[in-house]
């Protein structure tokens, strides 16, 4: 369930655009106004506001924002205001340019979006970067990671509920074989993970657990330092249980010393209209503390205010 809260009556896009313009005028910036508007509008409404703003002031709203705000606050507002496909394309491009084996962004985009959404990201990527997503991923990754990531971002998985139990059994067996042989980059393993439908994969992993006594991810933990194994586990979790996956990303981002603002921003901005409410519930259960409180404890200022707005506070 989405966490985004929108007021019962919403001003017209031109009124919102006008208010945002006022937020930039004169000395300083009225950040609270920006948050109170953008933090409580749906994707369609934000798109309409951007259009109205451009028509009225001959400039892209995002460009104006870029000149007025900065840091983590700017990043979350910018990412949030973009359309989800544009946002994912932007995040994917950043991940590709700054690629390192521990980066999860591409896996999240490939596995925690629907097939149609993933294709929309590929289209947005063409428009914005004048190259295909898969060509950039292929060029910036190597070895086992390329073998996994290129098919992941190129997949157009079937989205129906049909399950072939015989196939689930045989492919669970195949996975077990390859994992036991430590052949984690084996073609068959990659094939199964990157081409089967999500319903089929869930059935396969369930059968794995039934037949072999362990969830498949447990068997993929043999070397805690192996980044490729971690990538495989993340792939499986994003496909099977995205809310638990994202709870963990947030938990690692804020618990302990320091905060990984980029990870926190990414999860909040990309899930606020999807399942952030559920992620917050999972967080509370797991950490015995409401997510809002944890965020208040770890962040501050306008950045904190925007995150809380997206979590549904103060509509």
């Amino acid at each position: 369930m989405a966490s985004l809260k929108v007021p019962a009556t919403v001003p017209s896009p031109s009124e919102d655009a006008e208010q945002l313009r006022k937020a930039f005028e004169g000395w300083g910036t009225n950040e609270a106004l920006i948050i109170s508007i953008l933090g409580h509008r749906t994707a369609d409404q934000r798109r309409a506001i951007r259009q109205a703003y451009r028509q009225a002031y001959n400039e892209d709203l995002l460009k104006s924002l870029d000149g007025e705000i900065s840091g983590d606050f700017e990043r979350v507002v910018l990412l949030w205001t973009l359309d989800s496909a544009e946002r994912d394309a932007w995040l994917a491009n950043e991940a590709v340019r700054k690629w390192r084996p521990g980066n999860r962004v591409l896996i999240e985009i490939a596995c925690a979006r629907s097939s149609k959404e993933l294709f929309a990201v590929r289209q947005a990527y063409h428009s914005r970067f004048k190259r295909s997503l898969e060509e950039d991923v292929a060029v910036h990754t190597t070895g086992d990671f390329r073998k996994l990531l290129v098919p992941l971002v190129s997949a157009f998985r079937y989205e129906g509920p049909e399950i072939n139990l015989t196939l689930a059994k045989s492919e669970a067996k195949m996975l077990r074989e390859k994992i036991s042989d430590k052949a984690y980059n084996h073609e068959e393993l990659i094939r199964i993970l990157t081409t089967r439908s999500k319903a089929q994969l869930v059935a396969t992993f369930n059968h794995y657990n039934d037949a072999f006594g362990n969830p498949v991810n447990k068997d993929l933990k043999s070397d805690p330092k192996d980044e490729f194994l971690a990538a495989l586990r993340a792939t499986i979790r994003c496909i099977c249980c995205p809310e638990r996956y994202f709870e963990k990303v947030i938990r690692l981002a804020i618990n302990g010393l320091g905060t990984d603002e980029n990870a926190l921003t990414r999860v909040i901005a990309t899930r606020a209209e999807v399942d952030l409410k559920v992620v917050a519930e999972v967080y509370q259960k797991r950490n015995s503390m409401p997510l809002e409180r944890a965020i208040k404890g770890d962040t501050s200022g306008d950045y904190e205010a925007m995150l809380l707005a997206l979590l549904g506070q103060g509509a």
Partner: protein
Amino acid sequence: MGQGLGGLGVDEEALVSALGKWRHQPEKRAQLRKSFAGFFTADGGFERFEDDYIHYLKIEFARFKNIMVLWAMHPWERDARWANDVLHKAHPFDIIVEIACTRSSEELLGARIAYHALFHRSLEEDVAYHVRENFSNLLVGLVSAYRYEGDSINEEMAKSEAKTLGTAIKSAGVRNLVENGEVIRILTTRSKPHLRVTFKYYREMYGKSIEEDLGDELCLQETVQCLDSPPKYFSKVMDETLKDGADKNTKDALTRVIVSRADVDMEEIKAAYHEQYGAQLEDVIAMKTLGNYRDALLSLVGQ
């Protein structure tokens, strides 16, 4: 009856007129059966129709039906059905390469959408599962591509990738070229305009076209041909399909190519055919095909 058979398709008019001529003359039909010794064999007290020839006639009679059904079908559904056929009946995989490389990015996406709807699986899942040969990864990459279609090309990158391809080709035999990671990356992800420039630099650097140098790797060679110039590729297919002694799959290519390209680049294919073989495609088709099937083909090929 000999007039009505013997090419691709059947001459329906000639056959129907034979029916009319021989009313109430069973001895004429008996004579026909005796004179076509290949089609009929003496068996007990009668001339039995050879099973192979019944099968052959079924196919030839169906050519017109097939072309009409395919012509009416949505191009996405056509491509999805051809791909599914290939994968499940173990036809040659060049049809998969053809579909993946000669369609536009949106058309290939369309074929993938239709594949979901028709077969309740994804195209790439079936390709990955059913293709067990060493070119499996290449094919999966080709059908999964959503290539950028703009003109912007990075010349330096094209040069460097031409060199990468050249190096891979020169050192092939150490590892199967069709499994080479860089070869697959370049051919399955780069845009077509970029690849054409890359192939141009390849020729400049190595003196031969990359097609020639890939002569032993049929799957790769076909991939490169389809990406570089569909009209040239299709004109080659036309030549094979219209040769005497072509096998069933090769003959089926005639319908497939004409129907799928009639609205796309038929004029360019005719021009390439004329340049390569010195004949007009329409003329050769008219010679080698019969009846309604011929008329349908010629209508699609255009004057």
